[in-house]
């Protein structure tokens, strides 16, 4: 059996940042297990720019952003196994993985960082009525066909869902000569970044129809068209608003789901809202020695935040490996009044460090206040001109604020209009 101090599952931006941070903290034996042929994760197919503005202070493409971390990893003695799939993680942190060259491996790990990323919600989860021809695909799959394989997956395109990948693909397909007829969004607001709505739709005169969905697909072999319809407040299609749009491709950008099959396998408890593990401020799950970061923990809109989060997990893993993890008194975080979730879900108030709480809101707010309270006492109240579900927010609690709390306290984050 192989032996590593730290096994990182996933070699995307999250896994690489966690591994690099752990290395910097002095962890000796680290391995990154990556299922694709190379490091980089989904960034490799994100050839558009907009990455790195927060973290590097410059605008990079996905492969450029990933490339900086790949080079850093290569300059260390971190082992990397690509084309390697983790099949199972045991209760005793034994990782079973397989690849073509080394065969089936069992690796005993002192600590594990879960960084498997997320997957796209497929059509089946939406129950759209109609036929099942070719030409219906998730936006990410289409992105791979165009940017990696070099083939056009469609010529006349309707996009359902205004998640960032959908918006990016609206522009990408247009640039490649396809006609993007409309982007339909079920909700009354887009779940994508404002800058993507401007740069990918408005700049190309692609209409965004809010409160609108695809109710039926047509065509036996290749998609021939879709029927779209407006929806009411209960998100139900309004009879009489149906409109047929001829198209050969329907791209879906209807949500991302953290890929936690391995986490579930080892019994890591998940958060019902984030669909990622419940973690503390060092991103340690409730299973000792197993950490999680990146999109497997919560779906991010910016990779910069993935990097930030993963460095925290890398440091946490190093502390765990060196037995430096502090004994704890844990307070729980709780979102109310429009705050859908908070990561981390629990905070060690004896940690002696400030802690950043990341959260998302459930609707669009203008000129609202973010408040943080504990035991009825307001710790923080910050004005924000705009809050939107597509943009992750954060607030920071100081070391002093935390030190004043006790085990079992509730840190409550809410929105006041």
């Amino acid at each position, binding site marked *: 059996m192989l032996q590593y101090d730290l096994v990182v599952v996933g070699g995307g931006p999250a896994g690489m940042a966690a591994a690099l941070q752990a290395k910097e903290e002095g962890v000796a034996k680290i391995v990154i297990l990556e299922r694709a042929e190379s490091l980089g994760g989904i960034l490799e197919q994100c050839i558009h720019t907009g990455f790195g503005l927060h973290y590097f202070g410059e605008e990079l493409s996905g492969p450029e952003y990933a490339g900086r971390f790949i080079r850093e990893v290569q300059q260390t003695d971190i082992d990397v196994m690509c084309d390697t799939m983790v099949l199972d993680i045991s209760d005793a942190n034994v990782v079973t993985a397989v690849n073509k060259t080394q065969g089936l491996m069992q690796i005993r790990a002192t600590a594990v960082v879960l960084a498997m990323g997320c997957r796209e919600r497929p059509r089946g989860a939406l129950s759209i009525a109609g*036929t099942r*021809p070719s030409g219906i695909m998730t936006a990410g799959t289409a992105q791979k066909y165009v940017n990696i394989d070099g083939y056009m997956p469609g010529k006349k395109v309707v996009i359902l869902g205004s998640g960032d990948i959908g918006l990016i693909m609206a522009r990408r397909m247009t640039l490649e000569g396809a006609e993007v007829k409309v982007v339909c969004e079920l909700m009354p607001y887009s779940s994508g970044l404002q800058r993507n709505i401007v740069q990918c739709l408005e700049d190309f005169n692609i209409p965004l129809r809010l409160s609108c969905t695809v109710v039926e697909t047509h065509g036996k072999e290749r998609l021939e068209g879709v029927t779209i319809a407006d929806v009411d407040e209960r998100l139900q299609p309004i009879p009489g608003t149906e409109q047929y749009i001829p198209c050969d491709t329907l791209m879906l950008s209807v949500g991302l789901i953290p890929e936690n099959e391995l986490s579930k396998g080892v019994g890591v408890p998940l958060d019902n809202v984030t669909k990622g593990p419940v973690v503390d401020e060092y991103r340690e799950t409730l299973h000792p020695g197993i950490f999680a970061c990146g999109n497997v923990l919560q779906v991010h809109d910016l990779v910069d935040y993935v990097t930030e989060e993963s460095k925290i997990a890398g440091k946490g893993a190093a502390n765990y490996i060196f037995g430096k993890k502090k004994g704890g008194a844990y307070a729980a975080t709780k979102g109310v009044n429009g705050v859908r979730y908070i990561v981390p879900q629990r905070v060690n108030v004896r940690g002696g460090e400030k802690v950043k709480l990341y959260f998302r809101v459930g609707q669009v707010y203008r000129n609202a206040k973010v408040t943080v309270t504990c035991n009825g006492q307001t710790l923080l109240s910050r004005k924000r001109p705009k809050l939107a579900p597509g943009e992750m927010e954060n607030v920071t609690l100081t070391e002093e604020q935390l030190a004043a709390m006790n085990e079992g306290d509730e840190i409550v984050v809410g929105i006041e209009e």
Partner: protein
Amino acid sequence: MKFDVAVIGAGVCGALITRELTKYDLRVALLERANDCAMGTTKANSAIVHAGFDALPGTLKARYNMRGVELMPAVCADLHVPYKNNGALVLAFSEEEISSLGALLARGEQNGVPGLEILNRDELVAKEPHIGETAVAALYAPTSAIVCPYELTIAAVENAVANGAEFLRNCEVTAIAPDGDGFTLTTSRGLIEAAYVVNAAGVHAGEVAAMIGDDSITVINRRGEYYLLDKSQGALVSHTVFQCPTVMGKGVLVSPTVDGNLIVGPTADDIPDGDDVATTAEGLATVVSKATKSVAGLNMREAITSFAGNRAHLASDDFIIGPSAVNHHFINVAGIESPGLSASPAIAEGVAAILQRVGGGFAENAAFDPVRPEPVRFRNMSTEERAALVAKDPAYGRIVCRCETVTEGEILDAIRGPAGARDVDGVKRRTRAGMGRCQGGFCGSKVVELLARELGVEMNEITKFGGGSNIMFDRTK
């Protein structure tokens, strides 16, 4: 091309009939208009081996169902197709329905179904803790089973091909002319001569019979819509759970599948076009409302796909299995709706017997091997078995479909095998790649790449399911 027997239609019946005929010294061709077998009714049905209490005593449905149930375990064992005897429950939600259960029980006993009993609510809940709150009683049928219909069909075609049959795909029959003692078939792949024709064309059996002037078959296309749920829901029930049957059929069922998913459906709507397998908002809503009555706690948010299939219903409400009145060398196998899958091994046996009678007996094929080798199923293996397998062939060390843990080696096997996959859906049905919760989002393009490489074509020539169902267009700029 010249054959002794041409079987039209590579559904479960056509496939098993072809395999059965390879037991004899006959040149057999299986003609399929689609790019793969199991593309019609066979790929979209409830996947149940019915115990046999539904069909009216004395009907062909009753006779072939009972014999099929008897034959199915051995056929599945020979073909290495998963078969699970999980038992069935028919729920009653009222006093009136309890009396229907009594009638079903009596009918079943007359058909010779063993072990039937009526359970009260307590006994029912003991068997199925998640049963709907309003169910008051149930008919229990211990001999009911589940099997994967397309896996059975693929295995049967592979075994038939291994035993010398020819599988001709993209071979649509457009005309049949009597020719001496036999026939000349005009097909999309040219003229085919055959001494005997078996018409197993599913919803198109009426059109095929009409090609020889036999107008006795009028198929009513009865569409059924289904949901397939994630494996997270697969353990909600262990039995196949029916509601009381109606004139339109056995109603909406909730059942585990042999792969560990949960299937719910079907609806029953008569439609004009037998190839129209579109789902409808109303149909899918009906499935949900009925299924949630049968089983409490069914989480429809865990649906991974929905689909529809058409079954060939006849006004007589019975199968037609026998020589055409117009020409005795032309055997009709028509109206094969439920319990068609259950009956299929018996139908194969029956059709072979009919042909023997008509043809005056055939010599046996001494080389016939009933066994289809077991395909590699990495996901079902132990760690030790996996290690040994990958050590032997590294292609099994690359996982292509992460949701269902399918390896590159298995996909290559599926493409290279007898009657191998030629499209993405064909790979999916043979290996389960793309059948999991992400529905091919990640592995789809990998499968396209492997198909293109193995078939020696460009990626944009690869289709989802043949015809014009190409996945990609031209190269990017």
